[in-house]
């Protein structure tokens, strides 16, 4: 019974999200465009699939992944785990925080950032479109990997920032300066896609787990505010994918060039022979 209630509740909130969009789409289709949609029933079926799929997806996450992920984030940032036998509740007070003590936190942040971004539904959608539009020059999987590595690097750096307590804006400004520099050199075709991938990473799967990690870290380290430091991780998760996607395009162009050079070198060689 419990499951059915939860399913209905999730379904309801997904529906509330979709109704305004459906009204706009139907309104324009009927009164402005006044055109038959090709395969209207198929499209409707697709809409229902999306709705049901999202509701199931969100519910499964609530059930299986979020609770455990949140517990793990708080355990990993717990002083009892970090300092082992040295730490006993109520006796030892941690006065100075060494950033090296948090090594497992950075590894966890990297791994969970990578893994959750790979399962992010909006990114799957953008990847599919990118592969189709580019005629396969950009593979959906390659793009998603690039974005995921960006999020992973960003989030673990973000954890490092919370531990060391350096200014958030400093990191973000430096990151954007790097983005501007890369924009100048990166292949023109990738730039819009790279900018878009900053926006799609932070949605259904990634945000709740990142928030738990950030809040756990900020709560256990003296002098950090959960309000300010806990949320900063999301900003990292949106900037770094822009860099990694442009980097991915730059590297693949460079490899392509080298391959061509090698090929033409060989051809020239046989000519001489």
């Amino acid at each position, binding site marked *: 019974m419990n499951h059915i209630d939860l399913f209905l509740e999730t379904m309801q909130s997904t529906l509330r999200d979709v109704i305004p969009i459906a009204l706009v789409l139907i309104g324009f289709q009927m009164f402005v465009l006044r055109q038959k949609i090709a395969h209207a029933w198929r499209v409707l079926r697709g809409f229902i699939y999306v709705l049901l799929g999202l509701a199931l997806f969100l519910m499964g996450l609530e059930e299986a992944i979020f609770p455990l*992920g949140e517990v793990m984030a708080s355990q990993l940032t717990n002083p009892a785990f970090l300092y082992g036998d040295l730490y006993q509740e109520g006796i030892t007070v941690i006065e100075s925080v060494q950033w090296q003590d948090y090594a497992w936190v950075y590894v966890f942040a990297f791994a*969970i950032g990578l893994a959750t971004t790979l399962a992010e539904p909006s990114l799957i959608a953008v990847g*599919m479109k990118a592969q189709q539009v580019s005629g396969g020059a950009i593979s959906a999987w390659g793009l998603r990997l690039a974005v995921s590595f960006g999020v992973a690097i960003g989030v673990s750096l973000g954890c490092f920032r919370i531990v060391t307590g350096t200014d958030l804006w400093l990191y973000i400004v430096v990151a*954007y300066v790097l983005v501007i520099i890369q924009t100048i050199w990166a292949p023109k*075709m990738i730039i819009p896609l790279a900018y878009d991938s900053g926006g799609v990473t932070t949605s259904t799967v990634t945000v709740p787990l990142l928030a738990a990690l950030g809040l756990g870290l900020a709560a256990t380290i003296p002098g950090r505010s959960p309000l300010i430091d806990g949320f900063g991780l999301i900003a990292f998760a949106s900037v770094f994918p822009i860099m990694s996607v442009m980097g991915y395009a730059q590297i693949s162009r460079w490899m392509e060039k080298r391959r061509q050079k090698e090929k033409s070198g060989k051809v020239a060689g046989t000519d001489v022979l």
Partner: protein
Amino acid sequence: MTLSDLAKQFRPLFEAARDLTPIILVILFFQELVLKQPIPNMEEMLIGLVMVLLGLALFVRGLEIGLFPLGESMAFAFAKKGNVIWLLLFAFLLGFGTTVAEPALIAVAGKAAEIAAQGGVIDTTAEAVDSYANGLRMTVALSVGTAIVLGVLRILKGWPLHFCIIGGYFVVVIMTYFAPDEIIGIAYDSGGVTTSTITVPLVTALGVGLASSIRGRNPMLDGFGLIAFASLLPMIFVMLYGILTT
């Protein structure tokens, strides 16, 4: 049904399984080897994973047969009709409509109003808190509507995206300097919560569809970028709201 038909039917399921494997591996690795603790509620966990798997596969299938074709066919129809005003109105309503009811935004706006009341920016009466939260929600919804309009205009005119976005970030930096401290964190966050899982595929299909049906536009160069606008503009609008309400 031949074997390849069968494989095609189950392809979304296989892909969903591949997409979810990393999460499961990460959780197992940390739980078993680092934290050295058993997985609690194994049964619940497995049921949940099956739901996530089915959900993701259904979602992807729905994208392919529903949201993508619809977004594209509407974009083609607008391009054929050639009426810019209707197109821009559609763009605005799509952005505004998808954001105003977004649960994540409602939650963030409520929290922001509480913080503002505690910080003494507004009165602590329930009425004042509600009106602040509503104002913030409307501001974000307006900003996303405006963002999609600007993004569509950019596709029509063929402006280069990087000038718009980098220019926008300069505005963000300058406004961060003038905006009250309490609003900055919320402003930066609001850029992230606006792009929901249903908006992203629709808006992407709209952009790519428009860019492919207008002569002289390249779908790769001009079709993407709407989401970038939708994550940038809320930051500017929310900081402006913060400046105006204090």
